[in-house]
């Protein structure tokens, strides 16, 4: 097929580019979160307005990550988009159920050390597992 070598990686190249954008912006967002957290913990900020600015900047980076991820989803082909949205739906459902169960366990005092990051970890691992499941299912 003429020109296929030149064009063959169009979809793959775009996907790679979007993947790198997600990785880079996720790293920036996470790094800013850690920075603000440590700055507040060790008193690096001289004034409370600096903390607010740091939080706002972190939130902005979070919005950029969302934008980049939505752009990533929109550029996927039919199958890949289905795999990703199925994984997101499962992760959201599991997170929702987990958070309510977690709340009940806290109320019943089976859990005393509340960590919101526990739910985040469940959500992330569920998402990753669901994406892997989808990729294997349609292999």
């Amino acid at each position: 097929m003429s020109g296929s070598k030149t064009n063959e990686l169009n979809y793959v190249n775009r996907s790679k580019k979007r993947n790198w954008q997600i990785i880079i912006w996720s790293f920036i967002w996470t790094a800013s979160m850690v920075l603000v957290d440590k700055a507040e913990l060790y008193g690096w900020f001289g004034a409370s307005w600096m903390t607010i600015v740091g939080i706002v900047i972190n939130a902005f980076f979070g919005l950029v990550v969302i934008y980049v991820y939505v752009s990533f989803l929109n550029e996927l082909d039919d199958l890949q988009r289905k795999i990703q949205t199925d994984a997101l739906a499962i992760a959201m459902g599991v997170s929702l159920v987990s958070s309510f169960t977690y709340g009940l366990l806290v109320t019943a005092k089976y859990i005393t050390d509340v960590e919101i990051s526990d739910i985040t970890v469940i959500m992330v691992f569920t998402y990753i597992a669901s994406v892997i499941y989808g990729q294997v299912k349609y292999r």
Partner: protein
Amino acid sequence: MKNKLKILRAERDWTQADLANALNVSRQTINAIEKGKFDPSLPLAFKVARLFNLAIEDIFEDESKD
């Protein structure tokens, strides 16, 4: 959904990668469609039909029974 994608591709001596590139999708999508594991969206089905210069019904077979 049964389809003749593999046959049409073989007639033209195209690889799955060639067809994926022509349709601007991943090779995994082509593989999944050919194996009947995944049904393409309507826009993709139209793209396939235009590429092979055939009607959609000549490529994809609706197996649902009314």
